[in-house]
């Protein structure tokens, strides 16, 4: 057994960090293929995010910022890094954690426990908004009624609004989410496959919804998932990782796997896909859905009623198919205008709403 110590020493001497040339390299960066040590990794990882924040002017001094917090790896690292950068570089931000409780037993209740620990660990006030309070239904109750077929549509539509409502309650100026480079590359591909021009042009923007009540931003737009997970692992950050029990996640799953296969061959592919998404030119003659407001709840909507109100009406009237697939019943005033169904068609095929863009 004595030789194992020698063996380890031999391994340790093998590769040195290409930045400090002193410590043993701990990982290979997908973005640059550099071999770097743990300390240099923390430094470049945090510094790059800081540069993205500065260059894109994501925050202004004095702003109140909500961080979308699911308890998962991305949002946990986001909360950790942003509170660190806020201190280090005097951003002057008031940071809050904002979580959505979809009402999924054995999934969200567990992950919310993680968020509650994060609240204490990072000293950031936490606000939880629940589907039950906002809509009168938990996801468990919705699934009981409609089954496992279109449940992700409900969840995705409801979550988007729930985050906006929670952000309004916190009176924040902006909402930052943990979407990473891999997520964005994946969404670019999905939107191309679906032919969803409106979302394709939006999904690569680092800031969205500037015309709406609460703009959203993605400080991790150029941050690789691998580095986020490595960072969380090396720093022993406390995060929750379980797949949602109701999510088949099929369509997005294929895109995700394809992205990961590409990354293995050529890690730069992820940034290249984001770049392609950014460079996609949408011809000005393409008719984009017009933004208005929902007649019932006042939320932004391109239709008479917003998607959440249509879905909710269906649930409450015992017609859960309402609003799934082709628009029928409530928004049918403009039936002749087939172009207007664009918005609903894309929601129909959208699988899991975990990643709202």
């Amino acid at each position, binding site marked *: 057994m004595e030789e194992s110590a020698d063996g380890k020493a031999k*391994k340790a001497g093998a590769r040195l960090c290409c930045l400090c040339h002193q410590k043993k390299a701990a990982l290979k960066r997908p973005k640059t293929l550099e071999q770097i040590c743990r300390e240099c990794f923390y430094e470049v990882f945090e510094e790059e995010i800081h540069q993205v924040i500065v260059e894109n002017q994501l925050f202004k001094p004095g702003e109140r910022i909500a961080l979308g917090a699911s308890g998962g*790896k991305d949002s946990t690292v986001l909360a950790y890094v942003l509170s660190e950068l806020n201190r280090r570089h005097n951003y002057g931000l008031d940071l809050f954690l904002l979580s959505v409780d979809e009402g999924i037993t054995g999934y969200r209740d567990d*992950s919310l426990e993680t968020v509650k620990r994060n609240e204490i660990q990072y000293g950031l006030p936490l606000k939880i908004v629940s589907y039950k309070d906002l809509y009168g239904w938990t996801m468990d109750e919705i699934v009981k009624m409609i089954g496992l077929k279109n449940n992700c549509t409900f969840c995705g539509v409801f979550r988007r609004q729930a985050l906006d409502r929670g952000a309004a309650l916190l009176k924040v100026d902006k909402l930052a989410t943990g*979407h990473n480079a891999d997520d964005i590359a994946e969404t670019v591909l999905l939107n191309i496959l679906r032919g969803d021009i409106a979302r394709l042009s939006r999904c690569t923007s680092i800031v969205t919804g500037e015309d709406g009540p609460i703009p959203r931003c993605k400080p991790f737009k150029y941050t690789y*998932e691998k580095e986020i997970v*490595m960072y969380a692992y*090396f720093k022993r950050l406390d995060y929750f990782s379980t797949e949602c029990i109701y999510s088949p996640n099929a369509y997005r799953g294929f895109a995700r796997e394809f992205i990961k296969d590409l990354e293995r061959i050529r890690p730069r592919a992820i940034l290249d896909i984001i770049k392609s998404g950014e460079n996609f030119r949408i011809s000005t003659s393409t008719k984009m859905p017009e933004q208005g407001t929902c007649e019932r709840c006042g939320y932004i909507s391109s239709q008479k009623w917003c998607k959440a109100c249509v879905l909710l009406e269906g649930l409450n009237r015992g017609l859960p198919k309402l609003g799934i697939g082709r628009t029928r019943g409530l928004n049918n005033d403009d039936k002749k205008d087939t172009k207007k169904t664009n918005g609903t068609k894309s929601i129909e095929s959208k699988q899991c709403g975990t990643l709202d863009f």
Partner: protein
Amino acid sequence: MLLFLLVSKLCRFSDMKLTVEFGGGLELLCNSVKIHNVNVELQSGAEKLTMKDLLSWIRTNLIKERPEMFMKGDTVRPGVLALVNDCDWELSGQLDTTLEEKDVVVFISTLHGG
């Protein structure tokens, strides 16, 4: 005690003690156990144990369900990170990484939720 002596005698030349750890949701494939202290038997005649050998051993001995979430072909599924003694296995030769007694091998899935 007697049993321990017997086991250690039997294992002396053919076994390697390793710690295998699963994270990021992969533990769900092994009855939600994250840390496994294991003895991996070397193939008869084999001088060393590589990550390739360990992966096939894990697939047979530790993974209880959905092995496709962990492996693809003879390597880990893309999106699963592997570290040997807290060092990215991409730096040590991936499948060809040679393992030594008491090494700690960690697998983390990046594929679960955000």
